[in-house]
């Protein structure tokens, strides 16, 4: 019995060690305290929107940013511009085509520390079947619940977001600023 419990204890310790090793630097998303928002200009009027459903798989160590592995997924159908008519419009083929492409993804390819205690992530952003490189800048606040807070600017037409009549950037600007804030659990 003693041997048994000792074995269990040893096994448990090994398992814990193994799991902590294999998940070194993994940050699990606390979706309730995270956000992905975007902003753009419409005839000079600042417009705001957000996605309410997204997921992430992130391995990040501020001391070894180059070893970062990060993948993000966004549920396009969770888009919210604060108005039902606009939400419906945004999901149509001419904009995000939510039926054909319900998921947008970002895969980080390179993360490096930059001056000012910040980090720069380059990677591939896939929306609406188009993949283009982007460069995001973020800060990392360590602690029991580390927070990744950052932003990037994208040109919507590069992803064919707003096709046909909506290509007119004097009505809806080409630049879309995306702000993300991920509260994570170690």
């Amino acid at each position, binding site marked *: 019995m003693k041997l048994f419990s000792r074995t269990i204890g040893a096994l448990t310790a090994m398992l814990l060690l193994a799991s902590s090793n294999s998940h070194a630097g993994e940050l699990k998303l606390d979706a309730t305290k995270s956000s992905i928002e975007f902003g753009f200009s419409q005839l*000079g*009027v600042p417009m705001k929107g957000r996605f309410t459903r997204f997921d992430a798989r992130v391995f990040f160590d501020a001391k070894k940013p180059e070893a970062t592995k990060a993948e993000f997924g966004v549920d396009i159908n969770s888009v919210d511009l604060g108005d039902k*008519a606009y939400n419906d*419009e945004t999901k149509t083929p001419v904009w995000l085509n939510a039926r054909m492409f319900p998921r947008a993804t970002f895969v980080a390819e390179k993360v490096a520390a930059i001056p000012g205690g910040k980090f720069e992530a380059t990677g591939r952003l896939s929306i609406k079947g188009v993949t283009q490189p982007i460069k995001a800048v973020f800060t990392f606040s360590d602690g029991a619940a580390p927070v990744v807070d950052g932003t990037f600017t994208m040109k919507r037409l590069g992803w064919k977001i707003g096709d046909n*009549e909506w290509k007119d950037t004097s009505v*809806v600007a080409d630049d879309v600023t995306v702000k993300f804030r991920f509260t994570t659990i170690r």
Partner: protein
Amino acid sequence: MTGATRYTNTAIVLHWLMAAMILVAFAMGLYMVDLRISPDKLKLYAWHKWIGVAVFMLAAFRLWWRLLNAPPPAAPMPAWQQNVSEQIHRLFYLFFFAVPVTGWLFSSVKGFPTVFLGILQLPDLIQKNDELAPLLKQIHLYAGYGLGGLVGLHVLAALKHQFVEKDGLINRMMPGRAPHQKG
């Protein structure tokens, strides 16, 4: 009776300019609401709001001007007509402000700031509120109808003076022709 027989040139310009702007904004408002979302719809909304802001500013200037410059005497008419005319003109000024302000509030409550000419952002006096939005929409709509109704009464009265009474009252507000006599 000595004094001017016409409104000042400033008042005449303000009258006709605002008349044109109000008619255009009114027609735009009725037309744009039922359009599907398109660049044209967004442009019409933007221009409608810009005209509204401009009407508000012109009305403020016009009110100040009106208080400083007494209007020329009207044609002889019964006291009750004189009285109704005066009340209608008061209501005009009330609606010059009420219609743009309710539109501005409606825009804010829908979560869209008003940006005059796409440059000057007005503050949002109220926050986005989905429950309040339909109410403000109705208030803005009926304020617009109210102003439209006043325009209708005003035009009918002007036509009556011109073609029934033939008293030339409209010359007070016509540009150019009759000399602007100094008293």
